[in-house]
């Protein structure tokens, strides 16, 4: 069994994004997807902080402290980019103009519920950011995450136990072990990571996996 690395998961997701898509990459690991777009495809990235056409990291010494993405990393503007203010940025998200979002998650339920903004630890102030706006507006929500949490507990569940970000919003989950679609009747296996077997994946999944 050779679980996919973050880079391999990112590449697998990138393969599913059609040419000409408008895409929002969530903060953290999903930003890696941009490095794996297959040759010949143009994907346009939206950052919630006010740029569409977000380009790669600038060379060292050429950073612009006021040109950043939602992860607060220095970025560039690709040809055809535009800058705008926050209401317009969230109109793009909430209004269904962005085609695909790739997000991290604490938990995903078989009904498509997503939990990715707050844990049950009440001393830890919860930070929602733009996640709730993305999931209600973007028609295709892809989740990129480890199959289990740091303690080895399943993150794919019958029902989420953490506070929800959105209800029934996830289309597909990409983990180190498998790719799964969220269907009307629950998770359906799309593919296993190379060398992974279905029983092994089911053992670390707290919901049924249809095949």
């Amino acid at each position: 069994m050779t679980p996919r690395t973050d880079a391999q998961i990112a590449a697998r997701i990138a393969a599913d994004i059609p040419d000409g898509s408008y895409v929002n990459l969530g903060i953290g690991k999903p930003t890696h997807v941009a490095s794996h777009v297959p040759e010949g495809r143009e994907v346009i990235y939206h950052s919630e902080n006010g740029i569409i056409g977000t380009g790669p990291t600038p060379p060292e010494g050429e950073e612009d402290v006021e040109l950043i993405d939602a992860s607060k990393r220095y970025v560039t503007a690709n040809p055809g980019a535009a800058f705008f203010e926050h209401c317009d940025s969230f109109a793009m998200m909430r209004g269904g103009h962005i085609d695909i979002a790739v997000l991290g998650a604490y938990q995903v339920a078989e009904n498509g519920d997503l939990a990715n903004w707050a844990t049950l630890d009440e001393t830890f102030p919860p930070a929602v950011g733009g996640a709730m706006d993305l999931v209600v507006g973007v028609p295709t929500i892809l989740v990129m995450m480890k199959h289990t949490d740091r303690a080895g507990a399943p993150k794919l569940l019958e029902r989420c136990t953490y506070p929800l970000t959105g209800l029934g919003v996830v289309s597909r989950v990409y983990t180190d072990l498998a790719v799964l679609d969220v269907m009307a009747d629950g998770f359906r296996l799309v593919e296993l990571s190379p060398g992974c077997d279905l029983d092994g994946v089911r053992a670390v999944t707290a919901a049924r996996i249809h095949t």
Partner: protein
Amino acid sequence: MDKRLDSLAAAVAPIKDGSSVMIGGFGSAGIPFGLIDALIAQGARDLTIITNNAGAGETGVARLLKENRVAKVVCSYPRSPGSIWFERRFEAGQVALEVVPQGTLAERIRAAGAGLGGFLTPTGYGTLLAEGKETRVIDGVGYVMEAPLPADFAILRAERGDRWGNLSFHATARNFNPVMAMGSKHATAEVRHLSAGPLDPEDVVTPGIFVQSLVEYAVRP
């Protein structure tokens, strides 16, 4: 009409103890560091701060928290790497927190500035952040009724300004600055380049009608 002031101190002078203050910026971009420092020097306390992030490190919004000037933070993202001053004040019960989804935060500020009484957004429907709020389902989609979020003041950062108060911005420093100019009763901006001559009317992002004063502050963070 000349809305230009001579100093950052003059720009923040009207802010009082207990005022609500919107602060522009997202990450390192578009934060009015000069005006924040002037506000700390000015001494106003018990402020309600409306802003996207609760600050990180020892500058900007984090410094307002460190200096104990903040009674409440309304924001979408209090927890960033290095947001130690917010966490310290929050855990000690010294600052109240209202977490608002980011798009709802922007839209509530806009509603205040546009004279609307509220709006229905799908954002947050069915979640913890909608608890206690009016909801309704239209054509199978759930919506939460959100109220306008006005403020007494806004402190902003812009790239260029003119004496009529017109503003334009640089790259992703635009973010919340334009909507906060609209949503506050009194908006003041620190501006990297401030001219007596007018901006090109096609290039104005925030028309001066939304801006009460502005001051040149050439330092870029």
